[in-house]
């Protein structure tokens, strides 16, 4: 008879709950609070997916998580020796090692986010085809995984900066938050958009790799922005080219990160009104997140059959 009671309770609960509506536009209405709330309610799953990705990535490797550090450090040493010393980019940049590594760390976060989330829907096609989940969760899980690796590298960065005595005043280190926030906003916007488009056009993942590489050289990571702007001037490029260069969100984030970890900079190493520029970029970025999500919602209705 327990079953009968349970049945009655279930019916009563069902009769009182609202209908969730799924229409052709792919929107699911009726889930109170919309998508954000739905994803927030699945945060347990998000956490598990992040952990799964991280755990499976280095499973059965002897060094395991050390690889999250070994790779960026090797890349760093390579750039430091070749660009810094051979090509003399380090000249005139105090604590070039910290300058370079802080830029690389933030850029690494961006690239990991974009590349990871672009392939995320495809990588989870088994789930996408078989179970209803808010699909946004897959790119977000990739971003979460990238975030974890980023934080590990930040630890190394702090240790290195302390060891080299290159850390700025503690107040300056607060720049960490707006720059990471900015990169995160753009990572989410681009990640959402490309993960969805990639389902329909597989070319996107190759395009993404190219784009990410361009971003690396298009930001003041291995050189300073003054080098870039003076080069632009000698090339007689119009002024807006420099504006575009300076205001690209990754460049702005890298500036902020230099503020936070590289004590050797002077006012000349940063463009004017950096905080205002970052604020505007953040607002634009949020609008892009919204737009990217609209596109994502539109496209996700046919994910299951395109995979």
């Amino acid at each position, binding site marked *: 008879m327990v079953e009968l009671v349970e*049945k009655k309770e279930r019916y009563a609960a*069902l009769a009182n709950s609202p209908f969730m509506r799924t229409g052709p536009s792919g929107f699911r209405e009726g889930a109170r609070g919309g998508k954000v709330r739905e994803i927030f309610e699945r945060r347990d799953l998000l956490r598990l997916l992040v952990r799964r990705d991280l755990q499976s990535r280095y499973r059965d490797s002897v060094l395991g998580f050390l690889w999250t550090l070994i790779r960026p450090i090797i890349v760093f040493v390579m750039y430091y020796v070749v660009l810094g010393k051979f090509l003399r980019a380090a000249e005139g940049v105090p604590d070039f090692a910290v300058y370079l590594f802080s830029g690389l760390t933030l850029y690494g976060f961006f690239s990991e986010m974009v590349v990871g989330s672009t392939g995320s829907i495809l990588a989870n096609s088994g*789930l996408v085809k078989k179970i209803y989940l808010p699909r946004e969760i897959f790119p977000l899980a990739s971003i979460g995984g990238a975030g974890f690796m980023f934080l590990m590298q930040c630890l190394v960065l702090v240790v290195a900066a302390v060891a080299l005595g290159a850390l700025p005043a503690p107040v300056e280190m607060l720049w960490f938050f707006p720059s990471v926030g900015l990169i995160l906003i753009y990572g989410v916007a681009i990640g959402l958009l490309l993960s969805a488009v990639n389902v329909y056009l597989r070319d996107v993942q190759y395009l993404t790799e190219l784009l990410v590489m361009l971003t690396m050289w298009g930001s003041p990571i291995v050189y300073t922005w003054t080098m870039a702007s003076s080069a632009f001037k000698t090339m007689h490029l119009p002024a807006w080219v420099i504006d575009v260069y300076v205001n690209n969100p990754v460049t702005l984030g890298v500036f902020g990160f230099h503020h936070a970890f590289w004590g050797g900079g002077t006012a000349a190493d940063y463009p004017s009104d950096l905080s205002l520029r970052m604020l505007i970029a953040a607002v634009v970025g949020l609008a892009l997140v919204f737009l990217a999500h609209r596109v994502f919602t539109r496209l996700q209705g046919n994910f299951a059959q395109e995979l």
Partner: protein
Amino acid sequence: MVVSGKPGPDVVRVENVEKVFQIRKDNSLKDRLFHFGKLGREHRSHYRAVDDVSITIQAGTTVGLLGPNGSGKSTLLKIIGGIIAPTSGEILTRGRMAALLELGAGFHPDLSGRENVYLNASILGLSREETSNRFDAIHEFSGIGEFIDTQVKFYSSGMFVRLAFAVAIHTDPDILLVDEVLAVGDEAFQRKCMERIAQFRAEGRTIILVSHSAAQVQELCDRAIVLKDGQLVFDGDTNDGIAALRDVLEGRRVGEAPGAVDLPIEITSIELLDGNDRPTKRVRPGDRLKVRIHVDAHTDMEEWAAGFSIDTPMGQMMLASNTERLGITLPAISQGASHMDFEIDSLNLANGQYFVNANVSKVIDIDSHILWQGANFTVRDKSPNLGPLSAQVTVSAS
């Protein structure tokens, strides 16, 4: 196996749902750019997988979605589950839904069984706390034993599926969508699954099942929905639904005879009569049943033969006989309409629906005319026994 009690509130409403797939013949950016616009349209074709289907499902019912391959039943299930958006129309659902479209979707081979249980339960909508509370039950149901902490990639396929199923049925769904996944594991495990599904029904949960197995649908479902080429062709009682499915599979309607070619004698209809010679469609176990075969002879014949058979909706023959086997030669028949009877003294079939087929010929098995499913009847047996036979069973103990 119909669970008594009044139906619950509506949990699923499918309103004029249509799904058109666009099939593209190109899949790279280059092709897409070349075939942009008008040319692009030639490189696309449309396929209507679900065509204007409307269904309402009440809580506590078990619904079987039936149809031949490509009839759109799996697509419809995916639309209900929110996995695919409809092209037009709307789906309204409420309550917690779990889709068992593929067991172990989301299992990661590199993680241990325990980690996968947590991950999979979370995918199906359980919180960590809920999973922890049910972990022992899941572990026990799966019968995995000490392998729970082994990486899933070392599991046998049976273990894999058992663990996945164990997680799925412990997620407390209000609506369970099942797609052909019940035929897993060994027989003992299958029985366990069926028992759990029966328990689900008793608890007032709704199950929507896609199956090719008419037997499974007949055993589990209260209601059958038959699709053909994306269109709903039948919605109602399970037994009638299975009959409708058979018709769809054979591509014809009930009682429709195949075109005959120059046969000396043909069946026009089959009639079922009870002990008092009244037409009947319902038979109780032990009843007398008369199978009357109406024929149309094309010429005068010295002798002729006839036979009949009784099938289950799945085509399993339950009883068959003919005049030759009974050692009887039917008397001369003159041109025109006529009839003959087979009388079954006591028919002891169990609950279910049955179809009656008949055949006639001049000489047995030569130039026979066969009428498949010329009539059908239902047996209502009050006995609690299982199996295809009806019998009185008593118990005594010494």
